[in-house]
């Protein structure tokens, strides 16, 4: 598995680079800051970054998107229209497939923290944005959004295999099995 985990900017937002080991094609998930560590990782692992995926609209996840898109080229696939002002982004909906080399990801609805949000699920790994953190969930502004978020996580993430790695928008990674059994917001 080729996975880079980058903790960016003062509020410690995560960005991830995930790549197909056969074709070296790579994906960047969220881009709150365009730090030199991103192109360095791509070069070090001899990758071709072809896709940027945006989980939700918050500034800390999109503000450096234009810089990253300019540097890497390729396509931007997003849960919301014009992330970071990028009108050329393709808007995804739940159930869409995202191909990275020989790896096939699938988007699922994890709205609640924001009105629209998607997680991107590959067979061994899930990029969950701010829908699910290690031992927590992203904040919501009212009880209805909170209920929607909890339901979406239960329905669309907690049904994945236990050993699926969870790569969240902030903090350390986890696994679906750990979160389903021990996350204080669910047990």
């Amino acid at each position, binding site marked *: *598995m080729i996975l880079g985990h980058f903790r960016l900017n003062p509020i410690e937002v995560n960005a991830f680079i995930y790549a197909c080991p056969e074709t070296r094609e790579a994906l960047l998930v969220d881009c709150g800051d365009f730090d030199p560590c991103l192109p360095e990782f791509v070069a070090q692992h001899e990758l071709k970054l072809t896709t940027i995926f945006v989980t939700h609209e918050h500034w800390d996840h999109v503000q450096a998107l234009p810089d990253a898109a300019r540097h890497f080229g390729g396509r931007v696939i997003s849960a919301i229209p014009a992330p970071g002002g990028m009108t050329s982004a393709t808007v995804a909906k739940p159930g869409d497939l995202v191909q990275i080399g020989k790896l096939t990801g699938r988007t699922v609805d994890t709205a609640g923290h924001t009105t629209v949000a998607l997680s991107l699920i590959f067979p061994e790994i899930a990029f969950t944005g701010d829908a699910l953190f290690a031992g927590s969930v992203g904040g919501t502004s009212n009880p209805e959004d909170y209920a929607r978020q909890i339901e979406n996580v239960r329905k669309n993430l907690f049904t994945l295999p236990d050993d699926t790695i969870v790569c969240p928008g902030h903090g350390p990674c986890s696994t679906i099995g750990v979160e389903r059994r*021990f*996350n204080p917001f669910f047990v």
Partner: protein
Amino acid sequence: MAESFVNADLRNRDFRGQDLCGADFTGANLAQARLSGVNLAGAVFRGANLYQCFLDGADLTGADFTEANLEFSVLGGATADGAVFVSANLSRCNLVGTRAHGADFRDVNLYYARPGNADFQGADFRMANLDRAIMRRANLTGADLREVEGKPNLENAKLDGIRQ
């Protein structure tokens, strides 16, 4: 006889399904290795690099992580009763649901770690850095929190009989 991996480069290695009880990983590089569910009771990780290593659900009973780097590692759901983490770096570490009765966390760095729902009964945290550690619903009954640094989130944590 327990296996020896002293100073070995084990980055990204997948050890799932193996029994590594008592193995010696002193000084090894286990960055992003997968040890999920592995029996590591009594294993030695002194000075090892376990950056973003997956130890979820592992048996770490009595293991020795003295001065190891566990930043961003995943110990969620692991059992670490009596384990030794003295002077280890556990910053931003996932300890969700970890059970570590009587474990030795003296002088550890738990900055921004995530020990939600963890069970730390009787553990020793003297001189640990707990700043921004999210210890929501953690069980700290009987734990020793003397001389700790920083302000952890202790929402709904059990604090019966703690020493501070």
